[in-house]
């Protein structure tokens, strides 16, 4: 049985982060882009909690993770409201088809 240590958490968080960035860059659908964003935020959360636990840094990391969870929810709510409003005007939510502003 391997002891789970800081490195394991960091590997998981960097994989999540890379997947998140990949999702944001490649996906066309705005909702999928937002899901990629959630992965980036959660990667940072794993980092905070792992560092706080294994580095004996006190509770600062955990507190930060709580704030981030709340903000992620607020951000998702606002972003989804904007996407919904966009769907009403454009009747699709593909990021690369919404380009009225380019000349």
């Amino acid at each position, binding site marked *: 049985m391997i002891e789970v240590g800081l490195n394991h958490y960091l590997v998981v968080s960097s994989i999540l982060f890379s997947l998140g960035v990949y999702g944001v860059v490649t996906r066309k659908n705005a909702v999928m882009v937002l899901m990629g964003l959630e992965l980036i935020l959660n990667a*940072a959360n794993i980092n*905070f909690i792992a560092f706080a636990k294994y580095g004996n*840094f006190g509770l*600062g990391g955990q507190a930060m993770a709580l704030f981030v969870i709340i*903000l992620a929810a607020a951000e998702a709510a606002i*972003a989804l409201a*904007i996407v919904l409003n966009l769907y009403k005007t454009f009747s699709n939510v593909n*990021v690369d088809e919404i380009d009225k502003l380019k000349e």
Partner: protein
Amino acid sequence: MINEILNSITFIYPELAVSIFLLIIVLVDLVFHKDKKYIPYISLAGLVITGILVLNQIGITHFAFVPQLSAVKKYGMMTIDPFGSYFKLLVVVTSILIIFFTIASEEVIDLKERLGEFHALIYGMILGMLVMISASDLILIYLSLELLSLSSYVLAGFLKLRERSSEASLKYVIYGSVSSGLMLFGISIIYGLTGSTNLYVINSLIQGPQINLFTLSFSSILMFVGIGYKISAAPFHFWTPDVYEGAPISITAYLSVASKAAGFALLIRFIQTGFTSFISEDGYWTLIAVFDWQALLIAISILTMTLGNFSALWQDNLKRMLAYSSIAHAGYILLGIAVLSNQGLIAVLIYFFVYMLMNIGAFYVVMLISNKTGSENIDDYDGLGAKAPFLGVALAIFLISLTGLPPTAGFIAKLYLFIALIDANMIVVAIIALLNTVVSLYYYVRVLKHMYLTKSEREQENITPSIGSLVYLLVLLIPILFFGIYFTPIVEFARSCVSLLGI
């Protein structure tokens, strides 16, 4: 602990005033849902009170919310210092100007029912900016950045029936949340390296030999992504033209001045408290040799102003052109930080004051004309000099000031910037910035050419601005011309506000 918190509250009166008025506006909006025309005046009253509270703070230096553990070296979650007070004053004055701006703007008048939400969201932005300016803890920096961003995402798309506005807010929310997500990842790595989120503690810990330089550089760059997006620096500027074009004009003007000012205040505080080891007698900052901020800032600022100026050359929409011009101005201001000296910082403070006056003024004239014609296209400005003589002259002065020609205040701002650059022996950079100014002359003068030399093909209809608009424009024009000739007062005021607390 309780005593410390109660004691700290006396240092955040401006933020408290903003929070209280935010609640008042929401309540008034709920209770008096028939009659909303008083809401702008309530928010003006709140801003005046906040402004007075900020004025009271000028000159105070203090740490607020100090944790009990900090016995060796004093530090806090928030730092109250003259530098922060200067930027807070700038934000409050900009907000007051913007509230008057919205009173005259047809787009906002048409909102009627939703006016309360509009002002509540503006207050959300103000609260975010005020906290961001004095935050010296990474947690607080991230939270205030998000508060500012979340409110501005909604405001950018506030005209939700208009296609351009919805698209602007989608682009804003995607670019904004991704860059703040990257910034958060950077914060988490810095936390792992140092075990603290406070900039003062981080400063003393990264001077130790055991810090992994590669990881620290990586996380610093990630941090800069978040800040760079807020100030629309070059590789992160893609949202700027689209959002500025699509958002309501009043919000465009607000984003281009206030939220940029808060972003710059954050960047300066981050570099000075986080990465500076000491400040010499003649005001030059020595950075801790872990990450070369100066090289990064110089590269980014040259890229930013060149891209901004050259893209502005072929824009036909005035809002979009002013967006690119504001990117270019962010480049000039970044140079003032890249000097890494108090002299550069004075130049930045002067520049921001002048930039506020001239940029809001230019947007105001664009708004008055779009109220009449319904468009911001440059062809609609043909023959404007004859149709609306006062507006023509006002826009001409604002644009000349944005170019940086005497006798306007824009010249003084650029002059102090170049003096700071030359004193720090950055001659090559100064020459590049000067050449950029020459390029910018072309697209500003192009508007003047359309106003005065091109005959309009359509019916001539005179545009006569109301008395209120005349007064508003005069309030902006007189300081621009006055400080262009007699600039000692702002220079002295900036000099007295240059000190940051700490190190």
